[in-house]
């Protein structure tokens, strides 16, 4: 006689061996691997993005006649990628055979180290970048026209071939950029990696609670 599905279910699960409960081990194993893989992917795409940005800067510099600024900004962005890639290779030194918690904790420490190193680099990067943005403007036709116009004014005070008002404004701007370079870098970092970094913190907090 054909059994009903209710009977199959009832009789099938009367035998306890049909319900083998898996052991709970390495609870966060998959999650740790996923989150670090995601970081790696994001780093990689970010590098591609900076490479493209570098080429765009060079191209715009050439098109607008700002050769020096275009080249310096191109080299600056390439330097940023090289430093970033070099640091990324250090990920491979993290021992993957560690427990999920130790693996993730090592990665978190690595990330903090990188952020600190890059933070120092950005203290140079931002002022140079914005400095050459100003230089680039002066190299272009529009910049030259504006410069000639202000230089033609007999009241303009000039120092080293540039109007003092421009020079002082640029210096002041670059000082502000230098002072705020680290917060600016953190903002940049938060925009790109904020969400996943928050996830990493939450995961570590969960795992620490689990270990208690």
């Amino acid at each position, binding site marked *: 006689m054909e059994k009903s*599905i209710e009977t199959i279910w009832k009789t099938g699960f009367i035998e306890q061996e049909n*319900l083998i*409960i898996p052991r709970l081990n390495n609870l966060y194993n998959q999650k740790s691997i996923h989150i670090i893989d995601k970081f790696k992917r994001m780093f990689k795409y970010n590098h591609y993005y900076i490479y493209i940005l570098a080429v765009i800067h060079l191209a715009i510099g050439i098109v607008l006649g700002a050769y020096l600024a275009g080249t310096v900004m191109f080299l600056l962005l390439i330097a940023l990628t090289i430093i970033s890639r070099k640091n990324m290779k250090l990920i491979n030194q993290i021992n993957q055979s560690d427990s999920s918690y130790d693996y993730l904790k090592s990665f978190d420490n690595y990330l903090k180290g990188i952020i600190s190193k890059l933070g120092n680099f950005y203290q140079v990067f931002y002022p140079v970048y914005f400095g050459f943005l100003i230089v680039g403007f002066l190299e272009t036709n529009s910049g030259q026209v504006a410069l000639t116009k202000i230089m033609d004014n007999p009241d303009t005070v000039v120092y080293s071939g540039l109007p003092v008002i421009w020079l002082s404004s640029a210096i002041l701007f670059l000082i502000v950029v230098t002072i705020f370079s680290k917060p600016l870098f953190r903002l940049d970092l938060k925009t790109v990696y904020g969400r996943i970094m928050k996830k990493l913190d939450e995961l570590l907090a969960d795992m620490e609670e689990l270990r208690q």
Partner: protein
Amino acid sequence: MSIDFYTSQILPYAGIIVKICRAYTNSEEDFEDYYQEVCLQIWKSKNNFNQESEWSTWIYRLSLNVCLTLLKKSKTSEKVKSEIQQPDLIEDSNVFQNESINQLYAAIKQLSEIDRAVILLYLEEKTYEEIADIIGTNSNNIGVRIKRIKERLKKILDGKIN
């Protein structure tokens, strides 16, 4: 998660979790991942349990939600994977020692995700109201839906189980 919490609050209901996770996974690896994720979510969400329903009902609801979320995620990643390679179609269909149960599970897996949930809850002898509450639907059409699912299962299993 403390061992105490696991042994007192989860382990007595582990059977429920196993049955649900089995219905939404095709490999032992996925099953263990799903099971662990459900346990984790129970532990993480334990403070959200408001005692309006029974602990077991709450576990059913949470287990189903976790499984459906994981299934959705895996479908998305499978979609990405399948662009570069053929998906792995090998299924673990003999996970239980009872052959009839294996056949029944294989049939249940052919149902839609929600129908799987409905029939599992029905087989676990939940009332229509409880099923509707867990699934988040109206209890009026649960009976009709169960009848339809049973007919479909009967059709799939026809001749396979005696």
